[in-house]
Every structure is written in structure tokens, then in C-alpha cells.
């Protein structure tokens, strides 16, 4: 009995999300927004269950996956079950993350505790006082400009796209990647 209700719930959810995405693909922004919000909740639960030992990675991976869903939404065949499409993308991004981590762990120096001792000199306090513009300068132009235009000058995505000559999608990706890179820079300096 339990299983039947679950199955019905999943089917109803599939139908609902699929309808939202199809309306989104036709250009209805509010439907697309609802689709992404609801999808985020399901993806977050999906990743949390599978990344119990890496809880800090869940949100990052979720964002990567949302970006992938967005950028690859032209590969969704409207006759195909939405769940299969989303699941394949989520699994692909999950495996990609685990593979990257495995590679990095192999390369990580096991002696980094000793390195920590050396790095905690007094001069670090001064280096930590970098302001945003210095950090921004370290980003490549393609990421810095979209961030400056949309986040500091307050332009909309389409205005920033016009100003830079990039497509709106490219601006969105650049803002996301740029902010991520900035966060990494700040972490690196603290």
C-alpha cells in the first residue's frame, strides 16, 4: 500500500515538474523559476543522501547541477521522462565531483600540517586586508566584468550582456563561476 502511494506521489511530481519545465522552455520565466526552486529541493535531498561524508559539498554540487540543467535544457526531449533526464545529469555531476576529489586527494601533500605552521607568520594579517577590488583584479576579464556590472553597478543580466557582448547565459555562468572563484580566493587568504 505504502509503495503504491509513493509511486503515485512520484508520478504526480514528475508530471508537475515536467509541465513547469515545458512551459519554461517555451519562455515562461515564472514557470521556469518555480521549476528550478522545486528541483533544487529534490536535488539537495538527493545529494545530501549520497554525500553524507562531504556535507559542505552539497550546496556547491547542487549549484553546479542547476547550472548544467539550465545550460543543457535544450537536450531535454519533451517525450522523455523528466526524472530520467534530471537523474542522469545529477549522477554525472556527482561522479564528476567524486572523481575530481579523488584526484586532488592523491595529489595533496600529506605533510600539510607542517606547512600550516610555516604559513601562520605575522605578515599574513596584513595580507588578509585585501579589499574587494584587489581580489576582483585576480579574476579573468570574462568573470570580472559580469560581476562588476551586475553586482556592483546593479545592471540587469541582459544589460550586462549587451555591454559585454556576451550572451545572457554566458553572463549568468560567468557571475556564478566568478563569485565561486572569489569565495575561493577569500578562503585562501584567511
Amino acid at each position, binding site marked *: 500500500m505504502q509503495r503504491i502511494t509513493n509511486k503515485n506521489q512520484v508520478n504526480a511530481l514528475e508530471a508537475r515538474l515536467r509541465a513547469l519545465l515545458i512551459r519554461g522552455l517555451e519562455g515562461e520565466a515564472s514557470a521556469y523559476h518555480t521549476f*528550478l526552486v522545486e528541483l533544487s529541493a529534490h536535488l539537495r535531498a538527493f545529494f545530501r543522501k549520497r554525500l553524507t561524508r562531504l556535507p559542505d559539498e552539497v550546496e556547491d554540487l547542487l549549484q553546479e547541477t*542547476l547550472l548544467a540543467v539550465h545550460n543543457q535544457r*535544450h537536450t531535454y526531449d519533451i517525450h522523455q521522462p523528466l526524472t*530520467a533526464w534530471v537523474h542522469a545529469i545529477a549522477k554525472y555531476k556527482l561522479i564528476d565531483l567524486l572523481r575530481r576529489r579523488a584526484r586532488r586527494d592523491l595529489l595533496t601533500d600529506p605533510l600539510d600540517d607542517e606547512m600550516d605552521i610555516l604559513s601562520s607568520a605575522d605578515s599574513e594579517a596584513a595580507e588578509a586586508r585585501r579589499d574587494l577590488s584587489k581580489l576582483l583584479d585576480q579574476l579573468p576579464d570574462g568573470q570580472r566584468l559580469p560581476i562588476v556590472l551586475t553586482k556592483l553597478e546593479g545592471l540587469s*543580466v541582459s544589460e550586462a550582456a549587451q555591454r559585454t557582448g556576451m550572451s545572457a547565459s554566458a553572463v549568468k555562468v560567468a557571475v556564478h563561476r566568478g563569485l565561486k572563484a572569489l569565495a575561493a580566493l577569500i578562503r585562501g587568504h584567511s
Partner: protein
Amino acid sequence: MKTNDLVKLLATGEGSVDRHVIARRYTVALSVGVIAATLLMLGMLGVRADLAEAVRLPMFWVKLGFVASLAVASLLAVLRLSRPGQQLNGVRYALVTPLLIMFLLAAIVLINADPSQRLALLLGSTWTQCPLLIALLSGPAFIAILWAMQGLAPTRLRLAGTAAGLLAGAIGALVYCLHCPEMEAPFIASWYLLGMLIPAATGTLLGCRVLRW
């Protein structure tokens, strides 16, 4: 960046999505592949002199049909593997059936032939060139198809690379049919197949690196 902000960012200012991106990319890739292979073949090898007589022989069409059916089957596989979450299912049979028929034909020819003739039937007179020339003619298609696939979303990269390579190989072999003088089933079942498998294997090896997204 908070996830809610990202969602808002992604959802604003998007028009409708072009549904025909996949069809358009592969139309471009296949056209480039076929035209480039034909030009290469005309420039380097030339059409076989007896083409007008050859087209009257059933074996010419068996050969062409074998390669064409592999091309269609691998195109179906490529299209499915370009979208996340699609299974190959029946396409597997479409890929295997022409191979089995060709092997069967080759076996029948070899069994019925005089034992002293068997090796000649298998090697023909061009077995050293045939696989390499097919692989060479498939080169432009190989690059074009991988380009088309890169803009889409394959999730099984190795398999997608194999299918892309096989499709390129079949295009190369299809064009090579217009030059190649060999007409015996054992030759086609071995050397044509080997020629198509060279780009397929290359695709398998390159898939993980080239098709990542």
C-alpha cells in the same frame, strides 16, 4: 552565491529554447563529414573506373547497404547518447544485425569456396590499404561529430565517443565504397569493419577527455 540567487539569476530574462539544436548540430556535422570525405576521395583516390558496371551487381548494393545500415544505427545511438537519461535499448540490435548478416554471408562464401581460394577471398588485393583509407576518410566526420556532441550533454562519455567514432567510420566507408574495387563478402566483413572500428576505438579513448562538460 546562495542557491536561491542562482535560481533567480538563471530564471530571469530567458526567451524560449530552440528545440532543434540537436538536429541542427548533427545536420551540420554530417554534411561537413560527407562533403569532406567525398572531396578527399575524389582528390586522392578517384572513383572506381567500372562504377557504371558495378552498380548493376547486387554485391555492390549489399556492401553499400551494410555500411549504410551501420551508419543509420550509429546515428541513432549518437542521438540518444547526446541526451542525458536516454537508453540505447533497441539501437543495440540495429547495430548488431547488419554485422551478423555480413558475417553470415562471409561464412557462406568461404565455406562454398575452393579451399585454395579462401585466403584470396579474404584478403582481396587491397587489404593493406582499405582499413587505413576508411579511417582517413572518416577523419573530418570524426572531428565534426565530436564537435556536435560537445555542445550537447552526453553522460556516458566513453560509449558516446565510441558511437561518434563508429558513425564517422561508417561515413568514411560509405564514401570509400565509390572507390573500392573489392566485392567479396569476406573482405567487407573483415577490412571494412576494421576500418570503421579504428575511429570507433579512437572515440572510446578520447570520449572521456573531449566530451566532458
